[in-house]
């Protein structure tokens, strides 16, 4: 298991938290919570080693569109970049319902 952390600048307050997904094979769970300050923090635990650059690329792209001030935790059991992005977008959708 590998742990990866990222920080991104953020500016918009978020009111609701969201939980989506399951830590199943090829899947992941995302916990998204409002936080204080001017940065968003991402904490990832993944069962697959050596994909730090790929995680960075996926999250760079996600935060190029998303500006909420949040704390995101990802527990991953081998989700593909595509399914990671879908789960992140689903978490945003749930938090803004």
């Amino acid at each position, binding site marked *: 298991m590998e742990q990866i952390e990222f920080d991104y600048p953020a500016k918009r307050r978020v009111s609701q938290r969201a939980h989506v997904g*399951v830590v*199943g094979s090829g899947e992941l769970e995302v916990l998204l919570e409002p936080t204080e300050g001017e940065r968003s923090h991402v904490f990832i635990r993944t069962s697959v080693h050596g994909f730090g650059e790929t995680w960075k690329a996926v999250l760079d792209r996600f935060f190029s569109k998303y500006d909420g001030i949040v704390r995101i935790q990802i*527990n991953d059991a081998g989700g593909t970049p595509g399914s990671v992005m879908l789960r992140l977008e689903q978490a945003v959708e749930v938090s803004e319902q």
Partner: protein
Amino acid sequence: MITSRDKTTFLNRQSFLELDARGRAAALFDQGTSRELVGPFDRVESPWLAIQDVTPQEDDGCVVMKGKIAGKAAVVVALEGAFQGGSMGEVSGEKMTAALDLACADSENGQPTSAVILLETGGVRLQEANLGLAAVAEVMASILTLRKHAPVICVTAGTVGCFGGMSLAAGLSSYIVLTREARLGLNGPEVIEQENGIDEWDSSNRALVFAINGGEQRYAMGLADALVEDDTPQIADAVRGFIAKGLPHVHRSSQVELYRSRIGALDTSRQWDPNELRRAWGTSASEEDKR
């Protein structure tokens, strides 16, 4: 043959199997009455998985919800089959035990509280071996205490099924609800094949597996109380029905003499097939109970 009406029913049904544990649990309550206890944001995860290089899940694959079903107080505990095969660890076991014990305490204090356990599990989580075994023992003790006051309803819908130690918990339940996609048994087919060889049981033979462990066979053998379609309203209806009915006159697991005599009378010098067993044992425990 599938008629056009069957097709419409099939296409319009709301699959229960496609829901995750949280979705399944929530679907059983009267609308707007449920709340989750010790949810993922409480971050009570297994302390044992990360040190063994396994990614934990924040709810440890066990969802606990409290609310009302058919207007009566109820707690639902759902195991997530997709996380570590729905296995029972220290945390998931403690969550299930605590939920059952609180339901028991409420029942003793004049608020009868039924429990619904949604079991999609292979049994004990191997990474937490002894703690998982202890958890199964505690769950069984808690079911036995609670079922004096209020029914414990087990639902196994699939696709994991219910095996290992947790099949004993299913066996102690007041009522068991299965679908055709569900499998219920003590040792799973893969385990039997591994231990006794492919001649004993070919676990890749799905027709054979379902002819023995499948929900339809278990129901026809009188080992389950309802066989339902993979349809959320139908499953919720079955659960509501059993909660409204209350405790069975005699629990299936208390009918020791009945089952002992059935096994004693079984001629094991020849191979029985599943249909013969249906005919021989087909009387359900509740029907036996009426005699």
